[in-house]
């Protein structure tokens, strides 16, 4: 049965391109952040951690003894622009590493649970439940409180606390896909478990997983910033947007720029990631592109 798709779900290629167009500027924004992070030592005007007590809390554009504070200076006279540039490194590195770790672990376990059912399902989903039972931020906080703060610990903690999110989505999606006629047919025709999981099921659940991964990428950027904001993440003097915001909060009325620029950076980075993820969904999820024929 291959009926004409209903109007509301149809998406012709030309229209899809038009949907992609508004996202392109944000792809550019994201790439700029990536480049800035990669090239931080080259493009940063000054060392991010060098203090200049004569140049404390200077507004954007101030020039003192030949040092130009393009975006102002912080409470120790450090150049805000340079610290923002180095902060991009922290945010992106933490997010990339933790999403890759948690996504791979979570998806595989979730699919295995949803397809194998039986004891695999019970064990995996109980562990997922246990992890999801502790709000991730709290789990991260108690773990960091024990392990101590720092970049590596933050990445490990984020990855360890976030994999159940993928597992649950992969599990739920696999449950609904595993009983589809084409999967049953593949099984009757002698396809192996791995083949069914990765050839027949994965392509049909990769859309929701990608949406989760991109949402998670944005979330991981926010999590790293939150932990640093609370003083539990990357430690001073290393530049991190969250830690910069934490300082800026104390100077909201006297030095607005300290809390404003790191916030704008965080916002733009997370927004661009979310928008890219959203259009990825339209491309990757077959359900939203064309109507599935059964």
């Amino acid at each position, binding site marked *: 049965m291959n*009926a004409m798709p*209903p109007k*509301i779900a149809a998406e012709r290629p030309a229209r899809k391109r038009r*949907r992609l167009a*508004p996202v392109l500027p944000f792809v550019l924004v994201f790439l700029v952040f990536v480049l800035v992070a990669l090239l931080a030592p080259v493009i940063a005007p000054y060392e991010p951690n060098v203090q200049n007590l004569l140049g404390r809390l200077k507004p954007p554009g101030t020039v003192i003894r030949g040092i130009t504070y393009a975006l102002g200076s912080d409470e120790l006279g450090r150049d805000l622009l340079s610290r923002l540039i180095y902060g991009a490194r922290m945010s992106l590195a933490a997010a990339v590493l933790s999403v890759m770790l948690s996504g791979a672990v979570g998806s595989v376990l979730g699919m295995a649970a949803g397809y194998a*059912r039986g004891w695999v*399902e019970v064990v995996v989903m*109980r*562990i997922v*439940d*246990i*992890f*999801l*039972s*502790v*709000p*991730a*931020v*709290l789990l991260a*906080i*108690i*773990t960091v*409180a*024990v*392990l101590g703060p720092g970049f590596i610990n933050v990445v490990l903690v984020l990855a360890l606390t976030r994999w159940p999110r993928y597992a649950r989505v992969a599990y*739920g999606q696999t*449950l609904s896909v595993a*009983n589809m006629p084409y999967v049953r047919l593949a099984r009757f025709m002698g396809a192996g478990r791995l083949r069914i999981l990765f050839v027949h099921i994965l392509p049909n659940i990769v859309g*929701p997983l990608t949406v989760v991964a991109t*949402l998670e990428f*944005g979330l991981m950027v*926010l999590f790293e*910033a*939150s932990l640093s*904001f*609370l*003083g*539990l993440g990357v430690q001073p003097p290393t530049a991190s947007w*969250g830690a910069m*915001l*934490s300082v*800026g*909060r104390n100077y*909201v*009325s006297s030095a*607005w720029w300290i*809390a404003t620029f*790191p*916030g704008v950076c*965080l*916002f733009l980075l*997370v*927004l661009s990631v*979310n928008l890219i993820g*959203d259009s990825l*969904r339209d491309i990757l999820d077959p*359900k*939203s592109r064309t*109507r*599935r024929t059964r």
Partner: protein
Amino acid sequence: MGRFFLRRLGQAAVAIFGVTTLVFFIQRLTGDPTLLLVPETATKADIEAMRHTLGLDRPLLVQYVGFLWDMLRFDLGRSFIQNVSVATIIGARLPYTLALAAGALFVAFAIGVPVGVVLAIRRGKLSSGGLMGMVLAAQSMPTFWSGILLIMIFAVWLGWLPPSGPGGFGHLIMPSVALGLLSMATFARITRTSILDELSKDYVRSARARGVPTRRLVFRHLLRNASIPVVSIAAIEISHLLAGAVVVETVFAWPGLGLLTIQSIVSRDFLVVQAIVLLGAFVTIGLNFLADILYSIIDPRIRLDGGPS
């Protein structure tokens, strides 16, 4: 249904046991939990004495059983820093966090779900594009930054609302909005996604072919089927709210459990941190349990009892 209920209840009990075990082992990640409990100024003799008093020099298995026994009796211990029982400390702060979470959930649900429906039905239209932009903007706002901006705008510049601290309804508005924005975006996106999924199904096409008007289609057919993911996300979202409270309460100096968590980490009051994490976990387990029960009521097709299909 009864069997499923009991089964699920058993699973919740297992989860509570699992979380307690998890926390017990996280405590011991560095090898010696005594160091978490003593002030930074403690001497070596102090640490030894403390280790013995707390029974941390006993075999691990004995400690573990003792820990489980304490938790079973709801004995959360006594704060060494404040010399008050942990339960008392938490009890004093709990109402603040509950009020904040309720406010945030209201903001999130009341805005998020209708927005999601509009986004799905008017997909591709200009109005939906603008709305989606707002949703994504809300989702991309770090709560601590939106909190700071809210303080800047509504407290410092306009002077409409109190900047921070505890107090009446006025004090609750900004923290609730800051906390609720992220969940609002999640509700809107999930509602949109699941309604879009429903829209591409056969029954919608037949209903349209029979001339069922869009409004009736949405309220009678789509919302019920699309509510499955929304319900399960709602349970997870409440636990996000509890966790997000840590940041929001810090920004607004709102004296709930979140602020208490950070204060306790700073003052090395580990038993309080541990109790809050366990409390958050138990609440989340309860919510997930409820969500699964609702799940099976809304959609009997989902057979969670593990039988062969």
